[in-house]
């Protein structure tokens, strides 16, 4: 008889999950590149639609950058659980002895690392392209770092609720876009303020508060949504 093995602790399990998700993402680099490419292309659309006048672009830049970041996060959130649902991994995850709350956080964290974090890091490049004043770039990166994490968490709720549906793609946008609005308001306000030379810190603080709330509550909804989707 072999020595009985105990299940790994929650932290170890979540780290393994995180590593698994990141490895999966790294093996399909095009999926990581897609949101960034989307970001670049939509940024190019705005001068075409609004005209190339730098002043005009600069005025809209905070809102434009934030809306594109929001859309690229939205477009990728559908995939967070889908492949795991289709190959049966999700069932196994639900049966794991570790709390689902934490494992779901690991999934969302992996999603944020390959979308939100990268978006925030490359955003200064696009910001310069549409003439965002250089003074606001710090605020842009900081607000995107905080805000996209909230977007990933909220997007996870939509993903969990629609993962069992064959045509979930459009539905997920209808479900979660209303919940994205506060993040958009505070995120773009932070950047807007920075362009005017007003401190952006208060809005970043609000985004941080939203993030805390989302970390505390969103995994509950995601876990419930996954249980329903696997059962349906």
């Amino acid at each position, binding site marked *: *008889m*072999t020595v*009985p*093995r*105990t*299940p*790994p602790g929650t932290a*170890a*399990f979540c780290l*393994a*999950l995180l*590593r*698994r998700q990141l*490895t*999966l993402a790294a*093996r*399909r680099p095009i999926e990581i590149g897609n949101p960034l490419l989307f970001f670049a292309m939509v940024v190019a659309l705005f001068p075409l639609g609004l005209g190339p006048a730098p002043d005009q672009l600069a005025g809209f830049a905070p809102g434009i950058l934030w809306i594109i970041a929001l859309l690229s996060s939205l477009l990728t959130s559908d995939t967070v659980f889908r*492949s*795991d649902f*289709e*190959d*049966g*991994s*999700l*069932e*196994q*995850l*639900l*049966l*794991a*002895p*570790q709390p689902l709350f934490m*494992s779901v956080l690991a999934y969302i964290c992996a999603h944020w690392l390959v979308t939100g974090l990268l978006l925030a890091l490359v955003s200064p490049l696009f910001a310069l392209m549409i003439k965002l004043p250089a003074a606001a770039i710090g605020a842009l990166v900081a607000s995107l770092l905080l805000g996209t994490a909230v977007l990933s968490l909220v997007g996870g709720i939509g993903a969990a609720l629609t993962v069992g549906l064959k045509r979930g793609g459009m539905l997920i946008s209808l479900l979660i876009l209303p919940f994205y609005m506060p993040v958009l308001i505070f995120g773009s306000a932070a950047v807007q303020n920075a362009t005017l030379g007003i401190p952006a810190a208060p809005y970043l603080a609000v985004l941080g508060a939203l993030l805390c709330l989302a970390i505390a509550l969103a995994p509950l909804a995601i876990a419930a949504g996954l*249980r329903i989707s*696997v*059962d349906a």
Partner: protein
Amino acid sequence: MPPGPGGEALLTVAALCLERGGRELFRDLAFAVRPGQLVQIEGANGAGKTSLLRILAGLSRYGYSGSVARHCPLLYLGHLSAVKALLTPRENLAWHVAGESSYSRPQIDEALAKVGLYGYEDVPSHALSAGQHRRVNLARLYLSQCPLWLLDEPFTAIDKSGVAELELLLVEHVRRGGAVVLTSHQSLQVAYPVQILSLSEGLAA
């Protein structure tokens, strides 16, 4: 003589009724699974075998009435193999989402060798066949320490020798004091008493 079933129940089911689409699949199902029991669920297509197994595993949480009590960790293998095509068999087992245990590399390699995947440890799974995917999944049985196994059609897409090995493994598991509940269309060729749970008649001895 194999050790007879006995000891504390690993799983108890009471007054279980299931209705799907206005049709009653089973009603007032009551049984207990004890260490040393090898239970095969039988029934025609659509009799509710998979539904019952999912209820036992805890994946189905509503739509039925009655109670299911699980007293030990369990391992559930469903229709889907839960094998990620982008990961190698070794990675699939090392980072398995079921979170049963953290296995060492030799343990994983040994289990993979036992299911006939020696030499395939580092091949990306998308290069493997459907049967090999099933085998990666079955390797979990060699690693598992869970006393209770719930297996949904474990013999699907497995070749003849694989079936024989799997049957041996199941018997070994129940002899060690584990229990197995499985659904299958073929009858088991094992030197061990198999209890048949027929979904039209209730539990037969």
